[in-house]
């Protein structure tokens, strides 16, 4: 069994690295006790869910099974958890309400999108990637990140952003979703079992920036003081 994993890892290193890299920020959250901050508790849950889903996908991929169904399932889950982080961090009531409102709307939308792109759900082998959801997700997340930045600049509460953990998390998300925004819709055509669209190394771009963002998360979490997190 391990050999299958290893051979897949060797064939697809760029896609496999982020799966295991996710463990690094998780470990740091646990070690620095960052979970005492609600936002980082949610980030921890997000990373854990991400790791489980990614690992199952890794397992299926190494056994040459279609993982797209998991990917589609992951989209709303990912959005719910990451937007909840911003729900914790944004302070204005109105923005919080916007986030809360966006969650059910997005879930419904992604379900509709999945059904729309896959008329026969039972056919897992030819399951296709959602067409619009990932783009909408990227747009929404970029919007929350920018909104948070805007608020930070206005509030002027954080003396040094470089030692402020959440700034790094935001930067990671910003870079990841910026890189993903335009590639996401193309993925629908490229990640097909048959007649796929060849986009060369661009396939790996999201994976690369996923790793980058995970590393940025880790840097941010490492900014937590060893013992107490002074607000």
């Amino acid at each position, binding site marked *: 069994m391990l050999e299958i994993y290893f051979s897949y890892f060797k064939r697809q290193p760029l896609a496999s690295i982020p799966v295991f890299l996710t463990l690094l920020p998780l470990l740091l959250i646990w070690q620095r006790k960052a979970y005492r901050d609600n936002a980082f508790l949610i980030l921890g849950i997000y990373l854990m869910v991400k790791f489980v889903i990614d690992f199952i996908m890794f397992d299926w991929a190494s056994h040459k099974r279609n993982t797209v169904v998991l990917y589609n399932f992951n989209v709303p889950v990912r959005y719910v958890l990451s937007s909840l982080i911003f729900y914790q961090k944004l302070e204005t009531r109105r923005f919080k309400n916007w986030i809360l409102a966006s969650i059910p709307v997005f879930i419904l939308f992604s379900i509709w999108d999945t059904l729309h792109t896959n008329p026969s759900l039972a056919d897992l082998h030819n399951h296709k990637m959602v067409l619009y959801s990932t783009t909408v997700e990227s747009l929404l997340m970029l919007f929350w990140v920018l909104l948070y*930045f805007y608020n930070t*600049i206005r509030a002027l509460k954080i003396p040094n952003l470089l030692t402020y953990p959440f700034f790094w998390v935001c930067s990671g998300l910003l870079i990841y979703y910026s890189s993903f*925004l*335009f590639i996401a819709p193309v993925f629908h055509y490229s990640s097909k079992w048959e007649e*796929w669209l060849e986009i060369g190394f*661009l396939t790996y771009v999201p994976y690369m920036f996923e790793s980058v963002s995970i590393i940025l998360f880790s840097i941010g979490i490492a900014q937590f003081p060893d013992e107490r997190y002074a607000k």
Partner: protein
Amino acid sequence: MQNNEELKLALLIALIAMLMMAFFVISFVMYYQKRRFEEEKKINDIEKNYNRLLLDTALNSEETERRRIAQDLHDDIGTMLSLTKLSLNQLSKLVNASENEKQEQIMKKSQSLVEETILHVRRITRDLVPTTLERFGLLEAIEEFIDKLEEDNNLVISFHSNTVEFPRQGQKLELTLYRIMQELVNNAIKHASCSSIEISLEIENEMIGLRVTDNGIGFDPEKIKENNLAGLGLLGIESRLAIVNGTVQYEKPAKGTGSSACARIPVMPMSENKPEPLHPFRREKVNA
């Protein structure tokens, strides 16, 4: 399998553009935040300096006012009293000649009252402006202050300094130290119900340390600050110190009960600042 070079190129450009946008946003946020903080800090500094200046002016004008009152008391009331004394002396000769016991008694009483008043006016003038401080410096002034206190209280006040010749400091600094010492000693007498007070004035590593220790009931400065019990005294000490970059600490003395206050101020030798005019108001009058 399809291969679409144009799509790939477009995607690549879009990707690079988005990434540049992301980097730009992140660096902009960082830069802007930093600049805003620097500005805020500058404004804070200016405000702090301004407040210090205000305080300084307030204290200065208080001293000037004291000086003016003292001068007026001395020149006007003092002169009038001396004249009254003179007239009374003349009158007493007349009264003595008439040999009326009753009149003579009243005369004596009036004379002693005038004399006492003269003494009182002199004392008040002295208290208003510590002339000894200006002429002879801190050590002398403190000693004089103690002598006067010991006269009419049964208190033991001891004073020692680690130098025999305490170098003269700027006028403002000396006055600050003197007024702080005055308030601390007054507080000890007023609140501590103590039997002895110890004053020490030390100069060490460019810092002047003034310590006033009493053996009274003691007090908790934190509690007093929290409960807003501080009168003008303790607050005044702090604002005086703020002007000369000094600090004050209240602590329990090592042995027994009581309290101990220690003010520390960096030295500021006299030569550095110009001596202020001694009697600014008088001068104006002379010049006019």
